[in-house]
């Protein structure tokens, strides 16, 4: 969740959606994202909406604390029920992210999930994920989550190398995330993800390969690998500006990405989104696929974004302001945008092109189609799928996806 909120129009105080947003909803899957805006410490590269204080005071003295956070968030789930009215859909996916969700008691996470089950019902095969910090879970915690209905867990491993973790300000010790995978498996989790970051200043090719090997060795069914983005305003950005750590070159990022593809595919992982690999169809993150395929999801929590039927909205960022809004019965929504047909087309192109299935060529206009033919000639799109009417990125194309999108949306 990027730290800056976009510009948009105000959200009505009861959070009501235009009728158009709910039209045809039954045909779209519905998911929930639950944001937990707390961390033990802030990592130097992080610009997410998260806070290290355990208590934050909102308007009118409303207290937003880690301890009552689950109750506040449950208020928003109930609000969602009201806003979606008689929408009959069961929830297909739930994803708890942060921040550090596992800073909350496992019981809190289970209660939040329970509220969704109560208000909406969970589909029988629902995917229920939480992000977890390797240092803040143990087998008992994991067992409690599993018993409470969580069936997927995502650990922030980032790197297997101590000096890389240090630059990232990650506090866990190397080896811990890999043991977490085993503990999660032991607790009965079907699906386990490890998040990796490449291109950290000071990371060598060899460091990266070691991280990939360690991750694979731990036996997850899903790996996400992200190029380190140095966001403005972060501690890391300041350190780079001061020359304390070097900036990683884009070419290095490209090399590391190629290495990730090579090592992961050799280990039986297949890419299904630019930064995501899974060992099987079933290992894919269904919740993330909702984002990429234009489905509906309700994002609850400070700064969380939602999308329902062409309306995108986002909540106020500060936990205090968030809690105060809900305490007074108002929506915590800070702003929204109603997408035009063209906006939705553009979003589909930019999101679906990142996927293994690619974009149907029928979605492109004349100039975009011409651009797609050039991209094909330039080796950025795959021949086979193109003949079948889809623009699917080649490996080189994946590294230049944004450039291809810029041409294809014309």
């Amino acid at each position, binding site marked *: *969740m990027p730290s800056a909120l*976009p510009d948009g129009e105000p959200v009505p105080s009861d959070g009501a959606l235009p009728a158009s947003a709910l039209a045809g909803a039954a045909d779209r899957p519905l998911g929930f994202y639950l944001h937990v805006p707390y961390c033990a410490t802030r990592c130097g590269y992080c610009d997410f909406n998260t806070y290290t204080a355990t208590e934050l005071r909102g308007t009118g003295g409303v207290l937003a604390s880690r301890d009552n956070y689950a109750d506040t968030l449950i208020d928003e789930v109930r609000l969602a029920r009201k806003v979606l009215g008689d929408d009959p859909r069961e929830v297909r996916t739930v994803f708890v992210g942060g921040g550090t969700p596992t800073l909350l008691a496992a019981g809190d996470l289970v209660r939040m999930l329970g509220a969704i089950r109560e208000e909406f019902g969970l589909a029988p095969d629902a995917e229920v994920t939480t992000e977890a910090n390797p240092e803040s879970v143990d087998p008992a915690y994991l067992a409690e989550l599993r018993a409470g209905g969580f069936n997927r867990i995502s650990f922030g491993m980032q790197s297997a190398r101590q000096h890389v973790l240090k630059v990232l300000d990650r506090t866990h010790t190397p080896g811990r995330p890999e043991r977490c995978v085993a503990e999660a498996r032991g607790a009965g989790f079907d699906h386990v993800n490890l998040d990796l970051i490449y291109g950290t200043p000071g990371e060598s090719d060899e460091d990266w390969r070691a991280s990939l090997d360690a991750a694979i060795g731990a036996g997850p069914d899903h790996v996400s690998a992200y190029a380190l983005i140095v966001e403005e305003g972060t501690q890391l950005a300041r350190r780079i500006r001061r020359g304390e750590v070097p900036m990683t070159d884009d070419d290095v990022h490209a090399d590391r990405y190629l290495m990730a593809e090579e090592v992961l595919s050799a280990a039986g992982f297949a890419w299904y989104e630019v930064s995501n690999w899974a060992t099987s169809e079933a290992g894919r993150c269904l919740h*993330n696929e909702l984002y990429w395929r234009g489905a509906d*999801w309700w994002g609850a929590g400070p*700064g969380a974004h939602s999308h329902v039927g062409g309306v995108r909205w986002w909540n106020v960022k500060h936990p205090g302001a968030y809690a105060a809004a809900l305490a007074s019965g108002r929506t915590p929504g800070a702003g929204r945008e109603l997408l035009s047909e063209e*906006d939705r087309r*553009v979003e589909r192109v930019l*999101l679906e092109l*990142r996927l293994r299935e690619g974009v149907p060529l029928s979605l492109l206009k004349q100039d975009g189609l011409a651009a797609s033919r050039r991209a094909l000639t330039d080796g950025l799109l795959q021949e086979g799928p193109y003949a079948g009417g889809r623009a699917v990125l080649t490996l080189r194309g994946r590294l230049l996806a944004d450039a291809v999108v810029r041409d294809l949306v014309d």
Partner: protein
Amino acid sequence: MPATPNNVPEPSRTDPALIRNFCIIAHIDHGKSTLADRMLQLTGVVEQRQMRAQYLDRMDIERERGITIKSQAVRLPWAPTHDKGNTHILNMIDTPGHVDFTYEVSRSLAACEGTILLVDAAQGIEAQTLANLYLAMENDLTIIPVLNKIDLPAAQPEKFAEELANLVGCEPDDVLKVSAKTGLGVEALLDKVVAEIPAPVGVKDAPARAMIFDSVYDSYRGVVTYVRVIDGQLNKRERIRMMSTGATHELLEIGTNSPEMLAADGLGVGEVGYLITGVKDVRQSKVGDTVTSQAKGATEALGGYKDPKPMVFSGLYPLDGSDYPELREALDKLQLNDAALVYEPETSAALGFGFRVGFLGLLHLDVIRERLEREFGLDLIATAPNVVYRVVMEDGSEHVVTNPSEFPEGKINEVYEPVVRATILAPTEFIGSIMELCQTRRGTLLGMDYLSEDRVEIRYTLPLAEIVFDFFDQLKSKTRGYASLDYEPTGEQTSSLVKVDILLHGDKVDAFSAITHKDAAYAYGVRLVAKLRELIPRQAFEVPIQAAIGSRVIARETIRAIRKDVLAKCYGGDISRKRKLLEKQKEGKKRMKMVGSVEVPQEAFIAVLSSDDSAGSAKGKK
């Protein structure tokens, strides 16, 4: 409180014996406008309460940059202190203070019998002032040397009085010391103007002959022409004739400025004033031309008329191609007021549609560009200024090149470039570095004179092209800002000049072609190619950047193909941000100029071409 004296002679009925026509020669910042302000006040033509600083500088740009571009004339009545009953008419003709406008200065001087040489008592004389002083001496003007700002703590009146006395050929005690700011000594100066500057002499009964020394376009009144009557008389409502073109006009209004326009019955021998004929374009009323009556007019024009000749050319292109019609309209409007401004449409493969514009010099270029941007709201890219080359081919044919990209291919016999005589004044400690700079710019030393113990005048012949290219910046930095520069065209010379082309991915970028001396070509090529490598973003393919003379590549860099252009994360909250980023990137893409298949940001053009802009803007501050 001074007031306008009684018995002020009226225009057309003023005895030439009572008239004094003078101008003020001064360096920028030496206080000319402030002195003019004091004179307006002391003679009572501007009431105290209407007074504002630099009353006569009309254009915003003039006031802001402290430079006077267009000259004007003000009629000031003055009763000398020793002869209160005898009111004289002082016509103060304001001269432009810059090298680009030497011709206009020379015409202003030709309208005067004397000049005040105004020098800052803390700084001493500067190169342009010296150049204009020589011009005044050639015109046989009476020179009244004056040191200004004597109230400043840093003033060194004795030292600089000595310097002025040496230059003018008088005693140091003859140098007046004033403070235009406080008014100290200004009355004495006006008395001295009456006492020392000769009255104009002309033939009263001869056919009218008046010299145009300025011509200004006014959006309400059309062209206002400033003249000095030499012989005879011009009367209101008569028909007049411009002797260079033979065109005749009805005189809608004739009058004087004090300082606002005031209609009169006419202008007689020695008088200075304005004419309005209803023409809309200053090119129909050219500086230096002679005005006479249509009926029984003069047959022989006054000497000295010249057509202004552009010395420096630059391509002006709108940043946004759709502004092209606005640019044309703006140039048309500026030309109404600027007979020296010439332009014709040109097309650049890299920059689109624009104009090749000819200027008198770098300040002229800078002023025009700034006015286009400020008064007309245009965003422009200007190509590096270049001079005019004459290329003689082996087959004897000849090309005049005003745009480097049009430099002819094929067998060239000789290339001629304009040269100037440059005068540099500076403290003696900088002689070495100035000579070094001039040598590297292909200069030939003409001579050197000491103005005083620690100040020197150095004269060089230099190719104009070398001055156009950041010379002034270099001079200023090598002399810690102490040197001043003046130059005048003196002709042309043959030189070993070559055209350096810049190629992007094999395509010539016309806007970057330059004509340089063959010894400087390599350095130019290397510098530009390196700069472009920094400025052009990586593309989907590898882009070679080459500098070449003809087909010979003299410098090469490569922009590696971009390998990564993808955002790592794209989840729920990233989507809006990503779509907005995409919209922004697409806007940015629109601002890219395509050179062949390479996208070049406009900023790259501006940055590369601006290495010469800095020289241009520095000129204005001179």
